[in-house]
């Protein structure tokens, strides 16, 4: 990996200043929160912003509160460690979020990386997340810019080596917190120099490895995450990765359930992560209104696995990743039903005790 290329650094103190700085920088500007995604990308020359707008001095980005309606607002600048530990989301209803945050990369990266940064995480691909020389050896790809100044040519003409006949880029959405927040029905606030708006988390994303964050304009700052009050809900997050730490997800299942009397499902939301270029929400009509039997879970899992389309651009063989989707959905729902954890749960949903 090379060193970070030279750039101009801007350090706004307020959200408004940050939004203005981003607008003023234009296409040459990028936001830097924890830096755990952007800085390695800059070292690999995947992104070479001329202006980097650092958000660490913007205190308002770390403001969190519980509203009168019970809904929780988390500042997008909250570290992943602080997100996982926040008393505002300590309830079992928010377990999907706290588990997801505590399973991002490593404890060190959780301490630096932010909730907002993880939502905006660049999509990943084994043809893309390589240094400049490696990408030169494959003559670059659609998503990865070539040498200085040729980015535009690459963007329009490069090949996607994952699917050479395809017009689009198939890099994988690798954020842990987005599937969790989608399953919790969360929204985000986007602030630009012109104003602010609030949109569902899912609407940030598009199933395109390059234009994956199509729901956020380039001049907008993601400032806060809003999670509704979830009375009677419980949720979980299952993450597939080869090792117990470090690795990005190559499949994740976020599930939230509200069980009524007699174990009848009153509400259910299931989201798949890392099997497309965006989180995939699964329709849960088949689950609602009936008890969560083994048969119901199995039938739902077959349905849920269908839209997953893993390709050969992450760890593990793609057909196996596809196959495991079903087992992860089954496991997550069984966990929410209260089944004792089996072997898969112990790796997929393992949460380490947080050290004070």
């Amino acid at each position, binding site marked *: *990996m*090379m*060193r970070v290329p030279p750039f101009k650094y801007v350090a706004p103190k307020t959200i408004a200043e940050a939004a203005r700085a981003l607008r003023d920088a234009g296409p040459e500007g990028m936001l830097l929160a924890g830096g755990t995604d952007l800085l390695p990308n800059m070292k690999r020359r995947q992104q070479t912003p001329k202006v980097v707008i650092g958000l660490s001095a913007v205190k308002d980005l770390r403001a969190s509160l519980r509203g009168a309606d019970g809904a929780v607002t988390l500042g997008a600048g909250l570290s992943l460690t602080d997100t996982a530990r926040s008393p505002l989301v300590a309830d079992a209803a928010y377990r999907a979020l706290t588990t997801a945050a505590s399973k991002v990369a490593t404890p060190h990266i959780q301490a630096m990386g932010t909730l907002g940064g993880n939502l905006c995480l660049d999509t990943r691909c084994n043809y893309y997340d390589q240094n400049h*020389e490696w990408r030169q*050896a*494959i003559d670059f790809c659609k998503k990865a810019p070539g040498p200085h100044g040729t980015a535009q040519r690459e963007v329009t003409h490069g090949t996607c*080596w994952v699917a050479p006949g395809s017009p689009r880029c198939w890099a994988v959405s690798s954020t842990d917190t987005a599937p969790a927040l989608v399953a919790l029905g969360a929204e985000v606030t986007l602030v630009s120099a012109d104003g602010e708006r609030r949109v569902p988390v899912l609407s940030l994303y598009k199933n395109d490895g390059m234009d994956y964050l199509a729901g956020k304009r380039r001049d907008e700052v993601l400032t806060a995450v809003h999670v509704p009050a979830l009375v009677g809900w419980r949720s979980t997050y299952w993450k597939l990765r080869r090792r117990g*730490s470090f690795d990005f997800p190559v499949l994740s299942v976020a599930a939230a359930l509200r069980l009524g009397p007699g174990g009848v499902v009153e509400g259910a939301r299931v989201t798949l992560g890392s099997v497309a270029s965006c989180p995939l929400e699964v329709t849960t009509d088949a689950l609602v209104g009936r008890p969560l039997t083994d048969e119901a879970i199995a039938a739902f899992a077959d349905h849920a696995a269908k839209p997953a389309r893993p390709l050969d651009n992450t760890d593990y063989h793609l057909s196996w990743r596809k196959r495991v989707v079903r087992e992860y959905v089954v496991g997550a729902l069984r966990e929410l039903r209260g089944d004792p954890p089996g*072997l898969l749960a112990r790796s997929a949903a393992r949460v380490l005790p947080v050290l004070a």
Partner: protein
Amino acid sequence: MSPQEHEGGSAAGQHADAHKVSHTRGGGPGGAFNVVGKARRRVDGRAKVTGQTRFADDLVLPRMLYMKLLRSPHPHARIVKIDASRALAHPSVKCVLTGKDVPIPYGILPVSQDEHALCLDKVRHVGDPVAAVVATTEDEAEAALALVDVEYELLDTIADPEDALSKPEPRIHDYGDDGNVHKRVAFEFGDVEAGLAASDRVFEDVLFFEGNTHLPIEQHATLAAVDENGRVVVYSSTQTPHYLHRALVKALGLPGARIRVIATPNGGGFGGKSDPFNHEVAAAKAALVTGRPVKVSLNREEVFYCHRGRHPVLMRFRTGVSHEGKLQAMSLETLLDGGAYGSYGVASTFYTGALQTVTYQVPRYAFRGCRTFTNKPACGPKRGHGTVQPRFGQEVQLDKIAVALGKDPADLRLMQLAQAGDLTANYLKLGTIGLRECIEKVVEGSGWRDKWQKLPYGKGVGLACSSYLCGAGLPIYWNDMPHSGVQLRLDRMGGVTCFCGATEIGQGSDDVLANMVAEVLGIDPADVQLVTGQTDVTPIDLGSYSSRVTMMAGNAAIQAAERARDLIAGPAAKKLGIPRDRVAFQDRRVFDVEDPSKGLTFEEAIVVAEAEHGTLGTVGSYKPPQSPAKFKGGGVGPSPTYSYSAAVVEVEVDPATGWIHVEKIWIAHDIGRALNPVLARGQVEGSVYMGLGEALYEESAFRRLPQKLSRANVHKFPSMLEYKSPTTLDMPEVVTYIVEDPDAQGPFGAKEVGQGPLLPIMPAVANAVFDAVGVRVDRCPITPEDVLRALDDKAKGGAGRVGPAAFPAIGWPEPLKVPPPWEGGDGTAVNQKPRRSRPAAAGK
């Protein structure tokens, strides 16, 4: 006796014999051990944990320049033209080197002199260096790489051994057996086909072991400078400063006395820093050209391009057994993917067939091995060098044999263990063998008898054993000199300085030297000043490879220390007025063994000795015993003695996904004697850790693009994120048993521990997976994908196996036929052609 009198060392021990420590006796009174066997903090531990240790990249010299290497983006291409004029015009660039500036080839083995510091005419893998840019800052050197214009003519890519066997052209090298076959070797120790025909059962298995890499935390770095006397001094993270020295002499065309190599402490090596590397030669050349210090620090991707890691090996075992499971005959064929250069590859090829006979009695044995060239970074020696892959195959096959015959795999092994002192079918002379105790320990500790074939579906245990060398019996280049030398200097202030060429790569070689000297002289290891791994200051040690340092430098240190002890004992006895044979050394005192209150401090004893003899210094050296193998190729495998290991692994496997969880590992290692039990345990646990990575995760996998569109052949993921080495969270509980069966060859009976304990882990995991869910994964790493595919196969009525289907036709040469000792053999081949005069360093 004055220091001059024992110059040359070979007159050694004449009068030292009376006091000579043996493998059963220590240096203290009555043969008690002063230091050996005591758990101690290692002598270099403090500096390492406080950050005082200076690794190569920590070194800075005034006016230092930085070098970066421009690397090939093509797997196989001819270099048509290199134009560095734009780079040279860059104001901070001081020098640009290309292949013609350093045109002399070199290589670690005399028979494979096929590397250039910078590619001369061809590039052979993505990452092969074509130019070196030297500038005042690293960033500017890096930026100026883009200003070197290289024109290539692309050649067809040879991607794997199948390619290499089927496409003799284009040749990657114009030497080697033929086409893209680097080397074929074939041996037969007894009539194996007859042995197989006479066996009650014959088991045939084809298995594959994927390549993997060392992944040391410290990336390679080199600082080269011209010193005040005009000599080139090269500081480098190398495991083999002497061999680097030799390569520099050749490649730079300078006399050895004009070059100094200083091995800096290695932040991990595992075999990956045992070759002379292009960046080392290029930095030295750049220092000569510019007259300024030049540093090159590789980044992680570049370390993957240096590689020299585990060879991918396809292997076929045909093994005949009696109804009881006794081995009757074994035939092994191996096919190695060598990558783009020779490296240690010829030795690696021999090693894939060397050690099949040292754990169990094999009456007849045939081995055929073939190494191919491919357009990938060169493979070489990684921990367990060449023996790891066939050990995986052998131990997995033994498990299959046990299951097929209805035998407990532990019993199957115990009934036919090799015996101490045996001469094997392939003429390896064995020392002590603690393997029985190793097996018994792990069987008992793990509750094997209550678990094997008795745990519920989804849980299982697997057992495997192994053995490894305690130092290669022959050096890399032919010579009759010692393999390791030690000089001791004793001063009147009580100081003892130990000079030795051995290289500290984290394995504890410094600690072993201090341990040996302190044991014999009755002082504290911390009192021993160590000067190691500097070719102009320290006596030669061949390097930190083949688990040789404890054996060889340790014995050399003992010899030097015994001689020092002799120098001190006489004058001390005189001073104390006692007979010389009553002098004892312990607790920094030299005293009367019958009246310990009567004595001198160690310092006082040196003063009387120096007064009598003059300046005090001694030397010691070590050369391994001669091997009984006299046939050509018999030089790979012999060792003064062998270490033994046994492991039981317990796993849980999820039948729905194939997910593998390693629950616990029990491992026993026969180390002969543990010189420092803390370090020994650390080596065992470190081996288990590395072995688990190889068993479950790690692959040096390569990616080809659609061949209609591209000839690219790239390492799939040259990064620490995507090359999956286990984390602390993936490490199970490990129960370690140190088995001590002292060996007469070893220093105080010690054998190796740095490599052997890695070997049983991979086959034990494979065998445990079978015990858990009844399927065989005949390839390594063993991944959940493979387990699930095997389960699918079984569900459809198949054999429940995943692995290679067949072994390709190689075109083996007529084997060298060497009758085993029990068939009247004497270690020579009955059909050996008269040996040609020893090949000179064959250029290409």
